């Protein structure tokens, strides 16, 4: 067999391995990225969306809804995209950008319990227009 052909076979193996790793990776680690409204529509039509790993974006913290328990680090708040509101329950560290002010956008990862509460394992926050500059610098990093 010519070396070129052998190389092509080797290359094929690598390409197949990369493809396989990617497909498996997406299947096993991919999470749905939905807005609260989309999430509500999904669970209404398909109850398997309860307890499924989901990321919720396009939502804002409802101003004044944040309840922090300083000792147990429990944080409860409401998030809403203007149409659909979900209470969120989270325990742990939140970024500095997460506050009770208005216009704080959040991305929350976790699952929606059958009690209608979103149990978050991760909370990311970004501020809206008021501190646009802050976010802008970040975008400039590249």
């Amino acid at each position, binding site marked *: 067999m010519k*070396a*070129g052909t*052998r*190389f092509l076979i*080797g*290359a094929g193996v*690598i*390409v197949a*391995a*990369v493809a396989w*790793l*990617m497909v*498996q*990776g*997406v299947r*096993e*680690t*991919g*999470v*749905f*990225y*939905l807005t609260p409204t989309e999430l509500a529509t999904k669970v209404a039509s398909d109850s398997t969306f309860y307890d499924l790993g989901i*990321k919720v*974006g396009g939502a804002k913290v409802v101003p004044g809804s944040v309840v922090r328990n*300083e*000792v147990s*680090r429990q944080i409860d708040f409401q998030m809403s995209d203007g149409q659909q509101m979900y209470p969120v329950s989270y325990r*742990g*560290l939140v*970024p*500095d*950008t997460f*506050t009770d002010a208005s216009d704080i*956008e959040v*991305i929350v990862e976790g699952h929606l319990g059958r009690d209608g509460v979103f149990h978050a394992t991760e909370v*990311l926050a*970004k*501020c809206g227009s008021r*501190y*646009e*500059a*802050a*976010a*802008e*610098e*970040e*975008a*400039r*990093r*590249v």
Partner: protein
Amino acid sequence: MTFLGTFALWTALLVGLWGAVVAFSGRWQWQPVLERSVTRSVYAVWFAVAVAAFALFRGLYAHDFNIEYVWAYTARNLPDVFIATAFWAGQKGSLLLWALVLTLFASLAQFLTPRRYAPLLPYVAGVTQAVAVFFIAVMLLAANPFERLPFTPLDGRGLNPQLQNPGMIIHPPLLYLGYISFTIPFAFAVAALLSRRLDTGWIFAIRKWSLVSWLFLSAGITVGMWWAYVELGWGGYWAWDPVENASLLPWLTMTAFLHSVMIQEKRGMLKRWNLTLVVATFLLTIFGTFLTRSGVIASVHSFTQSPVGWYFLGFLVIAGIFAYTLLHTRWPELAPEAELQSMLSREAAFLFNNLLLVGIAFSVLWGTMFPIISELVKGTKITVGPPFFNRVNVPLGLLLLALTGIGPLIAWRRASRANLRRQFTVPLAVGLLTFAASLVAGIRELYPLVTVTLAGFVGAAIVQEFGRGVRARMRMYGDSITTALARLVGRNRRRYGGYIVHVGILCYCVAFAGMAFRTDLEATLKPGDSISLASPFGHTWTFTHTGVSQYKDANRYVSAAALRLGREGKDMGLMTAEKRQHFTLEDGVEMKSFEASTEVGLRSDLREDVYVVFEGVVNGTEEAKYRFTINPLVWWVWFGGIVLVIGGLITMWPGGGGPVAPNRKVAATVAQPASAQPLEALRDA
């Protein structure tokens, strides 16, 4: 000043446009005056952009808050050093920095390129002018840094505190330098295609440029990791965030190019592949800018939606079509001069190295774009995060690490049994010994075990290469061991500099593997309370909270929590971790600016980092909320970065070194730089 700035930008735009149009018209080929005009327009544009940059600096230092940009990114109480940071902190200023650096590089490319490549230069000027015109046009149309406000505010909004860090002064410019300098290799590639001078000439002309680019990008990424580590407070240095991925993508293809180009120099193979890599790298730098500025992908970093991003998409599409057409029409002229002879050859090792690097790049691109791809295909956004990237890239990265050891050991063309035995016996034995040692040390996790084993193998391979070279010199010239080492590296800078870079990469890999063993703990402590955390190295750290102090600094209020550290009962000193609230003065009244920011407490040694985040106090008392993390081997990332930069600098150092000696006839119009290297002959003996 704003008039001067805007005027300078318009001048730069028109002159640049002239340069690009004349260069691409080809008229200069018959009129030497036009040729001179094209190359000189490059210097003129640089000068005009430099004037604009000066104008913005003046505005920033004079606190002219009537300029919207100055108001948006500085304040009166901002320390002077960070005014420089403010220059590129925002969209508009960073575009100006980009244009400034691009035109500077374009001028240097005209000025420094040896005369033998002169026929390529007008085309190069055309490409760099076209890119510069794009950046200047975006500024003038959509993001003019000299825009004025209808009134003059008393004070500015101030600079994001997370950017008030020394790392942030150098991180963005380093990345920019990496991104922007790659325009020059791209310009030479296009010049070669346009002029149909498709021999190895353009490859030699850009060797230094592609190394410069790679080095800046590597350093920029590493400093960015350091910044994220000490400033963002989440405990790690790499999160597979889209913005981070955007900087990694061109780095991967650039790394592939730096390797595959050696095969073209040596064997005349891979011409099409190399051109494709150069084009792909350039497009990825533009793509990264588009990704981070358009807001199409949600990221913790890039949140603002800005129309500027779409200009970049437009530019990306046009540049892509242009490059594709060029490559397509020249394809038949780029046939390889040789064929792969054996799978057991350095060529094959390099080919697989390239395949893996591009495979990793593809999977990173795919994962980053997956929300968009899945929405287009399935109608639902699905995101993938760090688990996806680690799952796919760790095995591929380990294969690549193995090739780092194999590549330099194996012979060109076809490795004989004797060559294999002679080269691989020692490194393989060392690899096996490392494996056994790690098992004894108690490492049981698969990936860290493989990483350490491969690190032993690759490390031994590099040491063996140095050892053989030094011994040969000592025998042949009677040098002492140190002279032999210095001369060996000095006379073969590219080869041994490359090995030193590999040592740097090894350090990174081992450090990454160390992160598999990180441990953390969250706790709320009253003054006097202690808590313990076991290190993966077997000892125990004790943290005793001593109290919280609050004070005011130049432009911020600081709450500092103090801790006493103990290791196995031994006192290891005090540590503080801070929470800062920045403010600006409005009519003499202090106003909060930005959210509170975190300043981590860090104690670093060769084995592990103790990383402490102070999250705040409980209800105004001195009871403090903490997160403690033990991050093993982090120091090795920064050390690896330094080694890599030193290695890269050696490779690039002017004189000496020279290209991989071609052992075939170069059918080139370009003379081969002659370099007498007695050791070249020894290399594959």
